[in-house]
C-alpha cells in the first residue's frame, strides 16, 4: 500500500503527463477553455478518489480519457451543442489574445466535422484529434473494431468528397 505522500507524488506526475492531452480532448468538444479545464480538473479529482482501488496495470491515460469523454458528453447533453455551427461558436466568450488562435482552430475543425453524421464524426475525432487507436476506441465505445474502421473510412471519404466539391 502506498503512503499518502507517494500517492500525491504519483498523482502530480500523472497530472503533468496528461493535462495537455486531456485538455485538448475536452476543448475540442466543449469549445471553452474554462469549461475544458473544469472538466479535466474534475477528471483528475475523480481519478484521485478512485486510485486506491484501481489496478496497478491500468491504462491511466485511457482511463482518464474515458472520464473526460463522458463528462464532455454530459456537458453536451446539458448545454445545447456549442460546437455545431459557426453561429454558435461566435457565442463563446473565450476572447483572450492567446486563445484566439485556438478558438479559430476549434471553429475550423468543428465546422469541417459538422458536415458528417455523428457516428462517423465521433470515430474520426477520436482517432485523429484524440490520437486513440481503433482498439482503444473500441474499448471506450464498446463497438467492434471493424465497425469503427468502416465508419472511419466512410467518414473520411465523405469529408474528402465534400472538401473537393467545395474546392471546385
Amino acid at each position, binding site marked *: 500500500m502506498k503512503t499518502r505522500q507517494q500517492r500525491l507524488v504519483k498523482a502530480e506526475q500523472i*497530472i503533468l503527463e496528461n493535462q495537455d492531452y486531456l*485538455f485538448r480532448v475536452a476543448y475540442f468538444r466543449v469549445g471553452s477553455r474554462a469549461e475544458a479545464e473544469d472538466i*479535466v480538473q474534475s477528471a*483528475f*479529482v475523480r481519478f*484521485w478518489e478512485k486510485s486506491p482501488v484501481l489496478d496497478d496495470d491500468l491504462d491511466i491515460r485511457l482511463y482518464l480519457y474515458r472520464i473526460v469523454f463522458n463528462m464532455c458528453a454530459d456537458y453536451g447533453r446539458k448545454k445545447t451543442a456549442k460546437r455545431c455551427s459557426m453561429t454558435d461558436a461566435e457565442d463563446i466568450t473565450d476572447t483572450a489574445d492567446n486563445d484566439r488562435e485556438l478558438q479559430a482552430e476549434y471553429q475550423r*475543425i468543428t465546422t469541417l466535422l459538422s458536415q458528417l453524421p455523428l457516428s462517423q464524426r465521433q470515430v474520426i475525432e477520436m482517432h485523429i*484529434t484524440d490520437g486513440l487507436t481503433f482498439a482503444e476506441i473500441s474499448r471506450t465505445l464498446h463497438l467492434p473494431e471493424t465497425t469503427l474502421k468502416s465508419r472511419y473510412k466512410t467518414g*473520411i471519404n465523405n469529408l474528402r468528397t465534400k*472538401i473537393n466539391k467545395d474546392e471546385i
Partner: protein
Amino acid sequence: MKFDDENIRSLLTPRCSVKTSPGFSQKVMAEIETMASRQIRIFGWSLPRRAASIAAISLLAMCAVAAIAVFNYDTKVEEPTTVSIPDSIPLPPQPELPLLPLKYSDATLATILDDVADRYGCTVNYADSSKRDIRLHITIGNEATLKEAIEIINQFDNISVTLSDNIITVK
C-alpha cells in the same frame, strides 16, 4: 487541389499548441491535497487502531443483543394458550330438495321397483322372478302416494303388483 487521406488528417489536427493555462497542475494538486487531508481526518487511524475499534463496536453490539435476549427470557413468560374445540359443530340447516317424478323410458321393472321401494321405504318381493326384466315406459309423479304408484304400475296387463304390510309383491 485534391485532398487525400493525409491532407484530411492534417486538416483535422490543430495547428496551434493546445495547452492548459499556466498553474493548472498546481491548482489541481491543491484540490487533491485538500481532499487527501480531509480523507486523513476521516481515515487517519492506523490499521490496528481501526481494527480494534471495529472489534470493540462488534463486541458491544453482541453484548447488547445478548442482554436484550436474556431480559426477554426472564420477563416474558408466555402463558399456555388453550383452544377449546367443540365436540360437534352444528351444520347449517340444509334446504330440502323437491322430489322429482320417477320417469323411466325402457327401464326394467326391477329398476323401477327398486326406486319406488327407496322412495317410499318398503321392500320388493318377486313371486315370479321372470317379471323383473319386463321393460316399461312409465312416469310416477312426485306427489303420488305409494298406493297411487302401485296403481300406475298395475295398469300394464302382464304385471300384477300388490302391496301388503309395506311389502310390494310382484306376481
